[in-house]
């Protein structure tokens, strides 16, 4: 795996997607349902990326948006909302029927186990075997037999079910905060984020705010993706809208319904994509357009009220063995006495 060591990886979403995404690659959504990386997803669409293969645990609107824009042609999927119910023909329905996209059916547990195995560098990982009787295991899609296998437990001989480890080319993730190097901190619903991000060969990260590394150093338990995995850091307030981000904003249900209503009809869908993706340059313009269209109050109504986590105290005495008077706490001597002792014991080497 490539190590990304730059201290400052800040760039625009356009630069990040332009530099790090190639047509035909595979990628995973390292947030699903919650805190979705929608600004980054829209950039894939804006740049007309093609023939991507997507891993998605749980989709809401982004799958239909990618399908309508012909960005993905293979989809490994555990769950995708049917917001309109079975009466509405969704873009995904149409694309499957017309052969525009191939779908591989997985479960949440097994899809994420593929990522976890990949993240750990394991060739495969055992999963709960109950589903071996179902079509999820029995019917293969475009991945053929590269998902499940049955093996005897080497210790008991019992039949077990394993999934293959995967390492997607890149992951998209949106988080509350990160430093310039990309140490990304996420809280709320952790779902698949850790394993999906760590499985990917590189992570394109957007965040609500960039913070000093000092903030990260005082709260490392919140870091979900370490900077060496991250190739690009995009500061992007409202970057997950219309999904929710704890500490920042709630989901915007009416806006979602606007897309769902549009998606059912190809012309209306094209109009929506033009208005909210192609005719805006980036997320900032998208938000400006939103405010113009619906009013500042409509947006502000989704703003989160604070409910602060009690900070964990990462403090210690911050002192070395030598105390303020220059005495060692463990030896009861000064530095001078210490060196004299080393000399007396014959522990010092004369290099001349």
């Amino acid at each position, binding site marked *: 795996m490539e190590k990304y060591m730059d201290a400052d990886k800040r760039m625009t979403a356009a630069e990040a997607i332009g530099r790090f995404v190639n047509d035909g690659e595979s990628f995973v959504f390292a947030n699903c349902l919650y805190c979705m990386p929608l600004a980054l997803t829209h950039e894939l669409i804006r740049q007309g990326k093609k023939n991507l293969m997507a891993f998605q645990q749980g989709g809401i609107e982004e799958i239909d948006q990618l399908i309508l824009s012909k960005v993905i042609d293979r989809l490994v999927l555990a769950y995708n909302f049917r917001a309109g119910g079975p009466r509405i023909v969704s873009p995904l329905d149409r694309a499957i029927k017309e052969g525009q996209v191939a779908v591989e059916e997985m479960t*949440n547990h097994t899809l994420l186990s593929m990522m976890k195995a990949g993240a750990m560098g394991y060739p495969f990982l055992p999963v709960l075997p*109950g589903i071996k*009787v179902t*079509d999820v295991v029995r019917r293969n899609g475009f991945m053929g037999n590269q998902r499940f296998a049955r093996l005897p437990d080497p210790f008991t001989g019992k039949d077990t079910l394993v999934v293959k480890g995967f390492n997607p080319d890149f992951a998209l993730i949106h988080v509350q905060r990160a430093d310039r190097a990309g140490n990304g901190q996420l809280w*709320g619903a952790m779902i698949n984020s850790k394993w999906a991000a760590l499985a990917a060969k590189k992570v394109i990260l957007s965040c609500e705010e960039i913070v000093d590394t000092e903030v990260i150093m005082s709260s490392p338990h919140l870091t979900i993706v370490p900077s060496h995995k991250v190739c690009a850091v995009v500061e992007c307030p409202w970057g997950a809208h219309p999904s929710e981000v704890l500490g920042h904003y709630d989901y915007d249900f009416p806006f979602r319904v606007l897309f769902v209503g549009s998606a059912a009809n190809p012309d209306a869908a094209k109009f929506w994509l033009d208005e909210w993706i192609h005719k805006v340059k980036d997320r900032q313009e998208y938000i400006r357009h939103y405010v113009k269209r619906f009013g500042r109050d409509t947006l502000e109504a989704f703003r989160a009220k604070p409910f602060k986590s009690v900070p964990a105290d990462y403090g210690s005495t911050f002192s070395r063995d030598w105390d303020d008077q220059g005495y060692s706490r463990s030896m009861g001597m000064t530095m001078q006495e210490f060196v004299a002792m080393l000399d007396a014991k014959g522990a010092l080497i004369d290099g001349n």
Partner: protein
Amino acid sequence: MGTKFTIQELIVSRAAKELKDREFVVIGQGIAMAAGVLARRTHAPNSVILTEAGLLGIDPFKVPLHIADPTCTRGFTYSCDMIDIFTTVLNQGYVDVTFLGVGQIDRFGNMNSSYLGEPGNYTTRMTGAGGAPEFIGYAGRAILTMSGGTFVEKLDYFTSPGYLEGGDSRYAAGMPEGSGPSVLITTRGVFKFDETSKEMYLAGLHPGVTVDEIRAEVPWDLKIADRLETTPAPTEEEIAILRSFAPDITMGRKLQLEVVMKQVINLLSKGA
């Protein structure tokens, strides 16, 4: 005469009664979520609600939009990831109950929530498996609700294991002894599963529904319990809780889309 109620309120109230206090319950979205929340607000205040997104011990003040919606609760007690939920919580036997919504169901409670039609001849994609196969596979029992789904002789796609071919076949396939669907609540009645054969039978009717109406929806020769319960109407308290918690569940999805669409149009005209 009690307060008038919607069919969704009846289903949610009946489903909520299946949950006992101090149980661990995994909930999905929609009706199932509302049933779990209602139970916790009424007779099961010490139940522990968790979702597969890694939210354990949530105390919802509204029905979450989806399984990963942390805005439904003012904090929670354990934040973990989805693998943790399926392994350290579910696989270790901590989950007593799972609520699940049904797309297609057969006589042994096997379910399809993936797609309708055949491979190469898709007609409609439903939601996909999500966490359903493992939850129904390994939770202590499953409480099923169905509104808009169908009974079928043969599933188009076998997503989630009920009692397989009936009898002991589920447990012979390795799923925990005693687990499986315990009840199915539809828009018309309540169904249970025979203790030995594991075949589904009609156990109760919603007010005003006849056995013939149910038979017309079931493509096999449905067995009927000797004594049919009549589903009790939701109480005033339950209705009040539901309407304040989950007006969207109360009205159902079709009406919800219509109402919210109207709101969107209002917003659009306000900005223009």
